[in-house]
């Protein structure tokens, strides 16, 4: 062994570990600690046991926010994955067979390039764009496209539809990424399988359900977890797009927004930390549940 192995190891690890320990590990640990205090962000820290969590239990806005996060958690992955799978299938296999190879429909390269682009935009920028797209008067893209006599839709100003607007923006941005992701997975599925199935007279719809979906299962699982984590966030969209930030009347409030407002606007650092702890356990439960529910035998080739 060369001399100086340990000085080298320490030299290489010192800065990254110090940065990570100070700004990430310490912060996560302190979240648990602060959740047991009524600290405002200034002055002495006083421990109050689980009072914050009791207060949460009786907080209407908290339950509303949890419901909204669950709404996004359920629908965002479901809709995105379904549409992305269909598009990926069309772009890779949808063109049918020619000379023994499956191919995508005409122009599939172009579609893939266009679909992917929104992924490159910051969610904050997307939020500002769609804030205008959904404008409740003629200046909005959608209302502007409606015929003259049409009564403009309220979109984000409508309690019933505001959250659906948020969901649709998340879907809009995510689909292209998952089309590319699933396409990469489809590329690795052997041509022979499709060929064999086609010789057996399988239609493209059969190919989709019997071959594409089972063989992509592990990628779908990853996609589900990624989208689930995105559904727990949504902070940028809600903070920028919605009426009264989280409104109207709390109709779009999510946990991330509650954390931010309690910490930086209401001087409730302790309460915000308690929300962080709840969020942590929700995320953990979701990941564990997903892995358990979606576990099935991988089709080996």
């Amino acid at each position, binding site marked *: 062994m060369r001399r100086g192995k340990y000085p080298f190891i320490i030299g290489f690890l010192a800065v*990254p570990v110090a940065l990570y320990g100070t700004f990430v590990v310490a*912060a996560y640990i302190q979240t648990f600690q602060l959740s047991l205090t009524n600290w405002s962000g200034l002055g002495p820290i006083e421990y109050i046991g689980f009072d914050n969590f009791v207060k949460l239990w009786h907080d209407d806005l908290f339950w509303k926010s949890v419901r909204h996060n669950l709404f996004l958690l359920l629908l965002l992955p479901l809709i995105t994955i379904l549409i992305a799978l269909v598009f990926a299938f069309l772009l890779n296999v949808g063109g049918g067979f020619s000379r023994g190879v499956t191919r995508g429909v005409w122009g599939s390269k172009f579609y893939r390039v266009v679909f992917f682009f929104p992924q490159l935009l910051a969610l904050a920028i997307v939020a500002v764009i769609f804030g205008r797209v959904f404008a409740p008067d003629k200046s909005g893209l959608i209302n502007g496209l409606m015929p003259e006599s049409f009564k403009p839709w309220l979109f984000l100003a409508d309690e019933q539809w505001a959250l659906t607007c948020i969901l649709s923006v998340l879907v*809009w941005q995510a689909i292209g990424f998952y089309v590319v992701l699933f396409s990469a997975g489809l590329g690795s599925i052997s041509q022979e399988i499709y060929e064999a199935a086609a010789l*057996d007279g399988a239609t493209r719809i059969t190919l989709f359900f019997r*071959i594409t979906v089972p063989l992509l299962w592990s990628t779908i699982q990853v996609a589900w977890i990624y989208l689930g984590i995105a559904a727990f966030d949504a902070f940028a969209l809600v903070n920028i797009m919605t009426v009264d930030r989280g409104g109207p009347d709390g109709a779009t409030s999510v946990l991330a927004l509650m954390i*931010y407002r309690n910490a*930086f606007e209401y001087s409730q650092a302790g309460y*915000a930390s308690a929300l962080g702890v709840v969020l942590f356990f929700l995320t953990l439960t979701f990941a564990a549940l997903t892995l358990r529910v979606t576990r099935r035998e991988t089709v080996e080739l």
Partner: protein
Amino acid sequence: MTTNLSSTDALSGPPGVVPARAAGRRPGGRREFNAFTGLAHVSLIVWALATAGPLIWVVLASFKTNTEIFLGRPYALPESFSFDTYVSAWSQAHVGRYFLNSVFVVTLSTVGTMLFGSMAAYVLARYRFPGNRFIYFLFVSGLAFPTFMALVPLFFILKGFGLINTFTGLILVYIAYSLPFTVFFLAAFFKTLPKEMEEAAVMDGASHTRTFFQIMVPMARSGLVSITIFNIVGQWNQYLLPVAIMQGAGADSKWVLTQGIANISTSAGYQAEWATLFAALTLAILPMIVVYAIFQRQIQAGLTAGALK
């Protein structure tokens, strides 16, 4: 393999009947194929329009007057083309400053992330020492936690160091929060590199540090490129961290692009300067389109690399 074949067999009946059935189905099958192809094209075109439509609309609206914008007809061409709104977005609305701030912060933080991330990943992947596994899992466990869970303590830790509302603070935080994925990805990558080159370097008397920078880094180039793109895009698009960190007196001169645009959007409502907002948005989107047009393949590969691992 068997699973798939048997399931298709089950659909088309007993094996002996298959050829006849398939042959008999062919004409009908073709018709289904044509309808299918038509439908496929319609759905793809609709989604391509839904993707590009809002962006084209933003560019068009940036040339319009307020009156034109409120007239409806979103895809009508503007009455006159003038770049006044762009000048006002760039200088009066400070998009130029936000843009340069973003370039400055992301350049330094990406360089830092790649340097420290690859150093840590290399040591953790290729050296055996007590505590190796512990440090590795400490880094990787960071992948499981949402960033905004740590937001409150993070703010007060930075405040303790006097780093709130400073570029230094923001850059250090970007690096720290990018490390879990960077270390995770690069450690896996460094593990796959062959030992021979490294041994040859040792024979020639190269130090550990030199071996890393002159032998291992060039060999790991493809992995480093992917993860660099991943980090640039991720840090460029950050919104939560700058909003939490860049606050206080005079903070608006240090805002990054995402933050700045979000703020212009809020004030555009009060001042009714919608065209300026659309020009600001165009200025934020256009560079992305240019970069994407040039590096399209590398960007797609870089951003999906993580999910495929």
